């Protein structure tokens, strides 16, 4: 075993939840509002409903071989060559996802907060801290998430509470203006962000000690995270209107700017940035961790930690050259990300699962056959 740490179901639930919120909290509302206008909140809830089926698939896949990670499963089910090919495909998705997250944090900070700071510097710092976490192991990452979890929740609650006076119900009317099509379109696009990305937890679920409560924790984490996201989308639209939400690059940050209670509680948009930094940190760290662990398992190394520095170089460089500009990034997010995620994080695991089930059945049959003889 490359990872000796053990995490509890509660830790797992927290990390799933934080992962779900991470990065979508800032990009999600804009993306949804672009497609579904004022019905974005419905699109978001619909996406949550659909995503339960993904989680279902992941849980079934994980329970096929409860003590193996996805990469190990692949090899066991598909054999050395095809299995490793599938694993590499899977890992390259998360390689891109890690670099995309690093890119997102860099873009956000350089447009909103630290404008003059070179984006490379921010990326390097963030990735270094993430490396620090990955290096300390899964247990430490999850426990750190548990420590920050009440803060994230507290800040979120505070933020939502402060926004209540700004709500204008007229903003979500008329309901169903464009019919069902834009809603489906919107929810389709938010599938890849973040629900399909949860496939990374196939790399982590074997390390949960309480096997029987993994399922519940996974569902609960996804569900609560998804509800928070829907809530956020709803509140963005209620406060700012669909037009304004869609037009802004980081609508939830602008949402923070709208808070003004008396002359006292205002100018606290940095809270949003803090929530976002925390959540995206854990998302990145989990991806980074899964990537390093998976790669080590593919190459049969006995230590994933030595891969971290080389991977850091790779992630930084991909983050810098993958998108020539922010328009490209948004284009990619809007049009390619969801189908790509569907291929890698849904059809691929589905394929592996189906083959796995067939193989297992056959093995049992063979066994009974031999017994009969």
């Amino acid at each position, binding site marked *: 075993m490359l990872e000796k740490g053990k995490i509890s179901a509660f830790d797992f639930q927290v990390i799933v939840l934080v992962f779900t919120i991470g990065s979508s909290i800032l990009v999600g509302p804009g993306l949804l509002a672009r497609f579904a206008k004022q019905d974005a909140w419905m699109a978001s809830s619909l996406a949550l409903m659909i995503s339960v089926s993904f989680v279902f698939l992941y849980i079934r896949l994980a329970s096929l071989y409860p003590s193996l990670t996805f990469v190990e499963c692949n090899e066991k089910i598909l054999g050395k060559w095809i299995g490793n090919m599938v694993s590499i495909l899977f890992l390259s998705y998360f390689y891109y996802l890690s670099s995309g997250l690093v890119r997102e944090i860099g873009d956000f900070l350089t*447009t909103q*907060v630290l*404008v003059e700071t070179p984006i490379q510097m921010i990326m390097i710092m963030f990735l*270094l801290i993430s490396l620090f976490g990955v290096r300390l192991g899964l247990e430490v990452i999850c426990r750190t998430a548990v420590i920050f979890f009440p803060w994230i929740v507290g800040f979120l609650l505070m933020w939502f509470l402060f926004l209540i006076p700004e709500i204008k119900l*007229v903003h979500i009317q008329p309901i169903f203006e464009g019919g069902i099509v834009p809603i489906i379109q919107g929810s389709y696009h938010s599938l890849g962000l973040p629900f399909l990305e949860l496939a990374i937890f196939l790399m982590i679920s074997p390390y949960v000690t309480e096997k029987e409560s993994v399922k519940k924790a996974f569902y609960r984490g996804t569900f609560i995270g998804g509800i928070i996201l829907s809530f956020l989308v709803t509140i963005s639209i209620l406060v*700012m209107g669909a*037009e304004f939400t869609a037009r802004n690059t980081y609508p939830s940050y602008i949402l923070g700017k*709208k808070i*003004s209670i008396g002359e006292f509680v205002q*100018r606290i948009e940095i809270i949003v940035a803090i929530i976002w930094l925390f959540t995206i940190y854990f998302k990145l760290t989990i991806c980074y961790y899964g990537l390093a662990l998976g790669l080590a398992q593919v190459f049969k190394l006995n230590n994933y930690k030595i891969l971290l520095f080389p991977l850091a170089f790779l992630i930084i460089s991909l983050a810098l050259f993958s998108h020539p500009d922010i328009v490209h990034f948004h284009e990619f997010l809007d049009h390619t990300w969801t189908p790509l995620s569907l291929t890698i994080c849904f059809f691929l695991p589905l394929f592996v699962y189906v083959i796995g089930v067939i193989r297992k059945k056959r093995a049992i049959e063979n066994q009974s056959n031999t017994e009969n003889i």
Partner: protein
Amino acid sequence: MKKKWKILMFYIVVLCLLTGCWSRKELNEIAIVTALGIDKSEDGYIISVQIINPGEIAGKTSTGRTEVVRFTANAGTVFEALRELTTDVPRKLYLAHLREVVIGEPLAKEGIGKVLDFLSRDHELRTDFYLTVAKGSPASEILNVQTALEKIPANKLFSALENSEKNWARTKTVKLDELIDSIVSNGKEPVITGIYVYGDHEAGGDFTNVQNVSPNIGLRINQLAVFKKDKLIGWLNEDASKGFNYITDNIKSTVVNVPCQNGKVSIETVRSKTSVEGKIENGKPKIHITINSEGNIGEVQCEIDLSNQESLHKLEEEYQNNIKDKVEEAILNVQEEYHSDIFGFGEVFHRSDPKAWKRYEQNWDEEFSNLEFTVQVEGKIRRLGTITESFQNETRE
């Protein structure tokens, strides 16, 4: 051996830290801009900024310099002009604490959309400042006025706008996102409160102005500017402004004068709630406005027997009529003169009947000009103030 990588990481982090502090700006290196004025010039914009002189406002000893300073620059775009100001302003302009944006009337007539893009794109700008239109004088001149009582003129405008919206209801505070929202929306057109300089225009920048008990010059907010898309097309008069606020449910408190025998009674509106409903009747859109208003007697200047419930009912009726008149006048005025749906009736239809709205959306302005509407006012007078009967009845003899 195990600790080595920690040490390595530590060094890398320190290395990163030592390489610099790029975005740093010390407090004494920034110039806090509280008001921004935008005027039109032949080939671009004249930008004027009002900068705070913090030492004068919060310092222990005053050196006799002015509390605010105005700078202007002329360039092709707003952004360029702001950068051009660096040739004049010794410090880096800092826009996050902007309270007021004043737009010159000629510019507003030409269209403010281009200007607004900068205001919503720049990362430093927040969305919590108010937008106003300078009436009768360029925006730069508005920023050139020293105000009495409030040391920072922009703050004076800011609080005056808030207070008058709350207590007078003939102005309206407009923030950036709301403005953009109504420019973009087809069923709603924007309004912005006007602002003008009264008194001796020359004396504005003179520091001695604020040393007078009654200043020679001052700033006053009044009237609402009617826009069509992003272009200013005219001004609402004061009564129509009030009517406008009644329709858009923007009344927190106001004063209504009602005639009675040989005089007037002032009624203070303390609560008002408007609901606007849109319906398609006989293939024609129709608007129905219901206003629920509650008031107290604020001042009595005539002989009226307030202890009599009948006379109170009469007053209530007058009160209702007064509001109704203003609302109707406002709508008719806008329908005839401006053909611009500043009340957001289009949005009402959009919300209540999105399918029908699709039909009208294209030529809504025309539809709006011929829109039928009914106004229903429920006025109630609840309290009489601290005295009941006016002593005017006694003084008559």
